């Protein structure tokens, strides 16, 4: 280890350092309340927060529970609150955080905590299902459904959603009582509302034109900031509001 830290002067060299991660632990069978536990891990500058969690789980405490599947920022399993911000653990490089201080990792907020970094995603998916996120069309084309480049570009941004819940669980309106549809559901409604091939835009606009629909959005931009895919979530919600006012997409 000592030799490894001496290489810091070398330009382009991979640095190694000790990082303290403080993880909010909770085991429903043992703990009445969640608590913070700290671990020291040896990390490289090329490592991500997910690697730190792996090191803890594989080398120090096998009881640590967290979700991760692809580990490359596309499956949306490992959204968590890192230093108070919702991010994907697999897309957050350790060197981009302030490693002179401990790194705080906890589960995303507003959804029922199940264990350690795992929350019950069902309420999130329930609101997602309610906006009917699938193509609805009465026609049956012989080959494919033709769409121009411009028509496709109209909803391109919202096709990028990976349903990680980073946006919805960063929304202060969702935190209040969890009844709000949430940014992710509206983003996925937007993806079909503005799709020229889809015929059920009116149905979705009607669903979102509701007390718990788009009107509860306070444009605090937490969702846009949290989105690991860089979707302009608040803009998408505003476009749905405008579509409701117009009465058509």
């Amino acid at each position, binding site marked *: 280890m000592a030799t490894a830290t001496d290489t810091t002067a070398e330009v382009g060299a991979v640095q190694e350092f000790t990082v303290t991660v403080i993880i909010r632990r909770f085991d429903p069978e043992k703990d009445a309340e969640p608590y913070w536990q700290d671990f020291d891990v040896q990390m490289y500058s090329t490592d991500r927060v997910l690697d730190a969690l792996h090191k803890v789980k594989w080398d120090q405490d096998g009881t640590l529970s967290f979700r991760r599947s692809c580990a490359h920022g596309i499956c949306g399993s490992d959204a968590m609150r890192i230093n108070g911000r919702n991010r994907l653990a697999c897309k957050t490089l350790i060197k981009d955080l302030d490693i002179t201080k401990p790194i705080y990792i906890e589960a995303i907020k507003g959804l029922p905590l199940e264990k350690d970094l795992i929350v019950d995603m069902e309420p999130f998916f329930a609101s997602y299902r309610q906006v009917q996120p699938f193509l609805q069309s009465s026609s049956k084309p012989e080959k494919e459904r033709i769409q121009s480049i411009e028509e496709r570009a109209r909803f391109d941004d919202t096709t990028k959603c990976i349903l990680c819940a980073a946006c919805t669980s960063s929304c202060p*309106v969702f*935190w209040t009582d969890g009844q709000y549809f949430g940014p992710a559901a509206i983003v996925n409604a937007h993806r079909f509302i503005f799709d020229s091939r889809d015929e059920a835009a009116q149905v979705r606009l009607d669903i979102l034109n509701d007390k718990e629909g788009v*009107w509860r959005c306070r444009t605090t931009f937490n969702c846009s900031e949290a989105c690991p895919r860089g979707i302009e979530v608040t803009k998408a919600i505003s476009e749905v509001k405008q579509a409701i006012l117009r009465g058509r997409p």
Partner: protein
Amino acid sequence: MTTDLTLDAPRAPHARTKRGINWEKWGWIYMRVSGVLLVVLIFGHLFVNLFLGDGVSQIDFAFVAGKLSDPFWQWYDFALLVLALVHGTNGMRTIVNDYVAKASVRRILHTALVASTAVLLVLGTLVLFTFDPCPAGADPELVASFCEDIL
């Protein structure tokens, strides 16, 4: 927000609200429209009161009495009163909806909001349209000095 925030049962199954006037939508539109109007009206109000004429030093009882005797300013201030009060009340209503989870407390606060707004609207309108700086037959000791010429 506290860090230990979790919700026991978030998101009740979505139930379609009954048809009729969509208050949530119209409330949202009202906030935008009244907001734009208020910007114009408030800056007009400030400009006339604080900038035109002798500026800040001109404001006294006689100045206000003079403005309120003009039907234009009566209706100007009436528009300001209604737009601002309802705008503020609707804002408070959304805050209550956001922060009060208990239905009974919510109802009490909403009722209090509507009641206080109604009282303020009635009182404000009454003052705007019935204000008389020099009521006939009043004790000369109690009314403004400029009333001597009129009474």
